[in-house]
């Protein structure tokens, strides 16, 4: 299953902020965590993640610092700020509204198998 591009883009910000709310992290680890959380179904590219991190930094939701790690490498760590936490809470409320409404429709009124075209069942 491949997720629609718009959906990936819309969920990207709360996803990254949520992961950073668990503790500071860096690009590669964030990407792996997303992969792990979605069971490999969310396949983010670096071209999505890094510009997003830079945008969140510009908006003041995260802050970054360079740290030395083993092997003489430098790594850029990101940490969520208070503003970021507030934004995360706001996004959670919005997403909850959307998912609640969708659940209302999908679980209570429409059964999933009715949506599958008859032909493909055969």
């Amino acid at each position: 299953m491949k997720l629609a591009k718009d959906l990936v883009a819309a969920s990207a910000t709360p996803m990254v902020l949520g992961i950073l709310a668990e503790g500071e992290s860096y690009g590669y680890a964030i990407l792996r965590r997303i992969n792990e959380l979605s069971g490999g179904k969310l396949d983010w590219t670096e071209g999505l993640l890094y510009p997003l991190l830079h945008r969140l930094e510009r908006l003041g939701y995260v802050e970054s610092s360079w740290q030395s790690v083993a092997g003489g490498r430098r790594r850029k760590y990101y940490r969520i700020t208070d503003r970021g936490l507030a934004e995360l809470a706001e996004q959670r409320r919005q997403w909850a509204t959307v998912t609640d409404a969708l659940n209302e429709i999908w679980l209570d009124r429409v059964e999933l198998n009715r949506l599958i075209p008859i032909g493909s069942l055969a």
Partner: protein
Amino acid sequence: MTATNDNDQLEAQFAQWREFVQRRRELRQSDADELEDHLRGSVDDLMKAGLHADEAFLVAVKRMGRLDELSREFAREHSERLWKQLMLVGEGDAAAPESRSRRDLLAMVICAAGAAVSIKAPDLFGLTFEDDSAFYARNFSLFALPWLAGFLAWRRRAKPLLIGVLVTLFALGAVGANVYPLTEDSQSLVVTSLHLPIALWLVVGLAYVADEWRTSRRRMDFIRFTGEWFVYYVLIALGGGVLIAFTVGTFEAIGISPDEFIGNWLLPCGVVAATVVAGWLVEAKQSVVENIAPVLGRLFTPLFTAVLLAFLVAVVWTSRGIDVEREALILFNLLLVVVLGLLLYSISARDPLAPSGLFDKLQLALVVSALVIDVLVLVEITGRITEYGTTPNKAAALGVNLILLANLFWSAWLLSRFVGRRTPFAALERWQTGYLPVYAVWTWFVVLAFPPLFDFV
């Protein structure tokens, strides 16, 4: 294959990859670091999963996706990076170029301050702008251009020989401007004041091209430098005008008249210091901002061609002779300078290997119509000179006119051969760069030989 061998190979691959990333202007040094860390993390994991170093590297790079798409995504967030920014000092990204630009900035500030101090230095000996305007008029370029030349020579780490030549030429300029007994209302004074800056500018050119003064490419670079310098100078001057307007307006609002300060300090110091600042800007931004002079050249070539052709048609239609007043020759000299400038800056931006096109034909029309007009003017003016005798003004104007005419005549010939596909474009470029010494010889001749030739009139 040993482990260290593997490692070396991997490092070499990383180095190569970095080089590719750094060529992208959307990606900064810090982005490259961040992406490299990502790539290394990915490679480490793949190697833990049992892949060889080179396989892991290939897979990791492949996963990262095409660099084109990656930099496009970066550009979307950092759109300001596509507007090439000229930083006064480096961004703190790359260590080496930063210290370089910092040193350049420092040298520029010293030279600009030196220029500002030097123009106020004669004040100490009682030479004021009001009472000794003649002194300042003929010496003005001597307060500014040596500093610009000094800055350029410093930047190019000029050899002692070149520095000696530069110092000698500037000293010669100072001698030419000051030893002749010229009175305040003598024509030679005006002629010297106009020709010395050009002569000295070509000395600046010598500092610019440094050791490579013989090569055509380098001289063309100096022509480009001149155009960009001019554009920047005009921009700085506009800013200075706004500054002055606000200085006057605000101080007069509280009843203080800043005229004295502006006339004696702000304006003269600003004018000479801006010479150095503009030169530094051109040097610093060379690869950062698109050259603007060629763009202006392209924009105005069709317009000037149209005006000149219309003028020619009008002359023929009304069968009116060109009324040659005293100023007329100067006006037509300036016209030739503009036409030459349009030609030069179109050449400077042109790919020498591109075949001739419509624009080259347009240029040919421009040059030919300017030539025809100038010949009409010359016929008139030589009649006048033989009738009334010559003065330094007329002789200088006529000399410049003939020099420009000769240049444009041969340019027109080369252009027509190029449009007819008989000579390569490079011939025109070589002709223009080879012609530069002619200007130098003529302007120095005017400065040094005209006053005695005309008995210091």
